[in-house]
């Protein structure tokens, strides 16, 4: 185990964490502002990936395809909000859970009917090779691009939330919905907009991860749970919490899977280490969540005081 390997896995963890952040950011805002639990968020991620894979192939350009998939997914998200989710804000959590779970079933089948169970998505040829990051440390160029895009979108989101009027309303809404209402905000339009932004972030994550993972039906379901873990760790409604939580989860998950079996081998008999290592590694982020829950039940950065 060399330090280069550690660095490499840390970059992988950062890359995964940033993509998780894109998912968690939209989700946490919807929670925070509308007190709405939306399981269908993962479906938007899936939809974004399918849009991107299709459009990349149709246009013959990776960049163009991805850039077109983002507004397309945003539009789908806003349509969903207007058609179904809007009526759920005032309903109890159980209704929200069931309705959005039903949306997952519907979305999966619709995608299956339109596209089939999976699609191929290839990364641009120019980025398919490694770059020499440090002497003796090659790193896949495409993964660097994901990190770059993740950081850029996170910065953009920060500016949007911290510096603009809309962002201020969103923050006000996340910490105190009544206050936002009293300020005369057109809440309905703000909600639709937030959903659009959340869907766009999903599309970015889905499109960027498309060439690495399979673009397939159900791809949004396991990553959705990780996004929940991120939100529980970071605190509902907090963008900053989502960023910290996402990078933490991405790092812990990636590094744990890479090194924990080896680490266990150092002080456990091999037959135990090879069994316990992968098992513990696979649940490490959930144990992290449990610890955060016990120490800070409201998450690391609660939006409400």
């Amino acid at each position, binding site marked *: 185990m060399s330090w280069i390997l550690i660095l490499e896995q840390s970059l992988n963890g950062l890359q995964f964490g940033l993509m998780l952040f894109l998912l968690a950011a939209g989700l946490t805002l919807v*929670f925070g502002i509308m*007190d*709405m*639990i939306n*399981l269908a968020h993962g479906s938007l991620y899936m939809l974004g990936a399918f849009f991107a894979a299709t459009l990349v192939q149709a246009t013959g350009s990776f960049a163009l395809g991805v850039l077109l998939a983002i507004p397309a997914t945003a539009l789908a998200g806003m349509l969903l909000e207007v058609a*179904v989710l809007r*009526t759920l804000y005032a*309903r109890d*959590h*159980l*209704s929200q*859970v*069931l*309705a959005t*779970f*039903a*949306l*997952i*079933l*519907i979305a*999966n*089948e*619709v995608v*299956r*009917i339109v596209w089939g169970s999976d699609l191929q998505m290839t990364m641009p040829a120019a980025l398919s090779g490694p770059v020499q990051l440090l002497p003796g440390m090659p790193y896949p160029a495409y993964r660097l691009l994901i990190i770059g895009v993740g950081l850029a979108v996170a910065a953009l989101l920060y500016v949007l939330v911290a510096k603009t009027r809309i962002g201020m309303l969103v923050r006000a809404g996340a910490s105190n919905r009544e206050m936002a209402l009293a300020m005369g905000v057109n809440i309905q339009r703000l909600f639709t907009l937030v959903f659009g932004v959340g869907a766009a972030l999903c599309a970015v994550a889905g499109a960027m991860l498309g060439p690495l993972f399979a673009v397939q039906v159900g791809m949004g*379901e*396991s990553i959705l*749970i990780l996004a*929940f*873990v991120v*939100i*529980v760790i970071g605190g*509902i409604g907090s963008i900053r919490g989502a960023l910290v939580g996402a990078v933490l989860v991405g790092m812990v998950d990636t590094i744990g899977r890479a090194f924990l079996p080896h680490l266990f081998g150092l002080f456990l008999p091999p037959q135990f280490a090879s*069994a316990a290592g*992968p*098992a513990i*590694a*696979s*649940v490490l982020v*959930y*144990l992290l*969540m*449990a610890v955060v*829950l*016990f120490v800070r*039940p409201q998450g690391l950065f609660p939006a409400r005081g």
Partner: protein
Amino acid sequence: MNARAAALIAALAAAVAFPLAMQAADQLFFVGFASRVLIWAIAASSLNLVLGYGGMISFGHAAFVGTGAYVSGILIAGGVTSAWIGWPAAILASAVLALAIGAASLRTRGAYFIMITLAFAQMMYYLMNSMKAYGGDEGLSLTSRAALGFGLDLGNEVTFYYVVLAALCALLYATHRLAHARFGRVIAAIRENETRAEAIGFPVYRYKLICFVIAGAAGGLAGALLASHGKYVSPSLLHWTQSGTLMIMVILGGVGRLWGGALGAVLLLALEHLIAEHPIPWLLAIAPNYPQHANLGVGIVMLVIVLYAPQGLAGLVSRKRHA
């Protein structure tokens, strides 16, 4: 005799007569199918205990069903085939897991609680996936069902059916007793107004946790039966969409109604079976592949029910009765 009791006796008589009729008609497949439906009825009824009676939106119930299935399956694979050891062990393991998950997640409320139960259940899914010793993602095949003794052979589909039916009846009767006992009153009060329940002196957290554990234990029983039924256990039993399916059953049948879980399981599984195995010719002509997309129908029906009939089908029926 009132209408309720008459309906109850009729339903019970039909359930008892069913396998005999199928046996006579040489349709043993349906006895096995009916056993599976009844096991899911137990699982959904156990979820209804925590969701409907306790008002806790637990989205990780598959973890308890799955844990029960694995504990019972691992024991059978290890040569301990006695149901008298395997099933209590499954129930106990699920209860302990529910105690741990409940103790952590019941400290939170609302959306947090939903997400945390969901996440811990998914943790169990990944844990079983990574357990190579117990089959990993391929699951665990068993050579036999559990052994009950007393000359009862669970390998016989009809015998197995009656054992499952007895378990379901026992669970529903116990639920009925519980709901009308002191504990049930407290749970109902907490569901209705948690703040006030605490303010008149009930240790709310403790009662919710007990309810959560009872439901988890009953889920473990369903899991143990499921392991024997299919002679197979796999991590997909613990996947979170399985929890969602259980929730759909409860909603379909009626939240917080004694028969809600059972009714919902029967409806959903029968519907799935009909769509997959008995396609409607004219629909097949328009959409040749529709049986493969049964979930589209389930999703749309669910969405419509949630948006327009929040009390579930049972709610629709009783509303009509009152009207």
